[in-house]
């Protein structure tokens, strides 16, 4: 036993890996609890942003109001729809994994990752548009000086969120799509699919709040 790996994936496809210090039920519960705890920390990371947003909005109400009209509402709405849809496919991927449909997992996660790309593209388009008008860090146009507080927090929030989108895409690819292509999952073992999906849902969840706060009510 002295050379044992902690997690041994050397098992027939569809079987859970052998973990040297716990059985697979315990491991599943542990992984899920661990993931939810991690999501809790992510929510609290954003909590700081929401709290700052609330205070800044309190002090700069009119400015927030005006400035939010400078955001592209339709880009925001489109992105919301994209993320909701990708969240849906991620959820479906879990069901597929539970049913042992590895192709389904790869396909649905694939769609989610693709949606992630779309989302980022729209965001890039928005950012470059803003930069063009001098409403972007480092290229501030003094004309928009009074919107700086709103835009500052807008970039912090959406930037952090975009970072999470990227991480989510990587996670789904590495822990969902890749093993699924090797028929790794089955009704007995689908933990990584579920965890990646949970992460992706969180990304969606945050956006559900960001969209109305930033684009609609300001």
């Amino acid at each position, binding site marked *: 036993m002295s050379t*044992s790996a902690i997690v041994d994936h050397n098992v027939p496809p569809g079987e*859970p890996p052998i973990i*040297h210090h716990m059985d697979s039920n*315990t491991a599943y519960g542990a992984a899920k609890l661990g993931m939810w705890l991690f999501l809790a920390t992510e*929510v609290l990371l954003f909590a700081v942003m929401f709290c700052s947003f*609330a205070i800044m909005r309190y002090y700069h109400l009119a400015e927030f109001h005006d400035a939010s009209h400078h955001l592209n509402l339709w880009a925001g709405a489109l992105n919301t729809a994209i993320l909701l849809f990708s969240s849906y496919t991620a959820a479906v991927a879990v069901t597929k994994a539970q*049913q042992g449909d590895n192709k389904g997992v790869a396909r649905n996660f694939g769609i989610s990752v693709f949606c992630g790309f779309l989302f980022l593209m729209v965001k890039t388009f928005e950012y470059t548009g803003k930069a063009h008008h001098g409403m972007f860090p480092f290229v501030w146009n003094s004309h928009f000086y009074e919107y700086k507080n709103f835009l500052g927090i807008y970039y912090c929030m959406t930037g952090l969120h975009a970072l999470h989108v990227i991480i989510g895409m990587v996670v789904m690819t590495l822990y969902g799509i890749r093993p699924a292509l090797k028929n790794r999952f089955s009704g007995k073992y689908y933990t990584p699919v579920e965890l990646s999906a949970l992460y992706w849902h969180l990304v*969606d969840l945050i956006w559900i709040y960001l969209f*109305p706060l930033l684009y609609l009510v300001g």
Partner: protein
Amino acid sequence: MGHAHAHSQAHTDSHGHDMQGHIVPVRTFFKVLVALLILTVITVAAAQVDLGKWNIVGALVIASVKASLVILVFMHGKYENKILWTYILLPFILLAIMIGGVFTDDPFRDRISHFKVSAE
């Protein structure tokens, strides 16, 4: 001690003893997706009407409904146990505490009040 020897842990808090989590039919997910999209349309529409401070309240309420749907259905929250729910809710409670605590401050800042004098 070989690998095959799996130790059963007595008081694991994971639900039950089979790995099988709840399988949610794709149809359910689809219904929720539709509901989410409709709610999105409603938020956008509601924001076009000027309701004063009710705009933000409304937007947040709708967002919370959406978030609940995602947590309950997409994230299988409906089928999770109490302990998991504790940790699902904890960050939101803390967020509320944080905003609540900070808002005991800013809106009540020095209106350079003379509360002893003005109380007379």
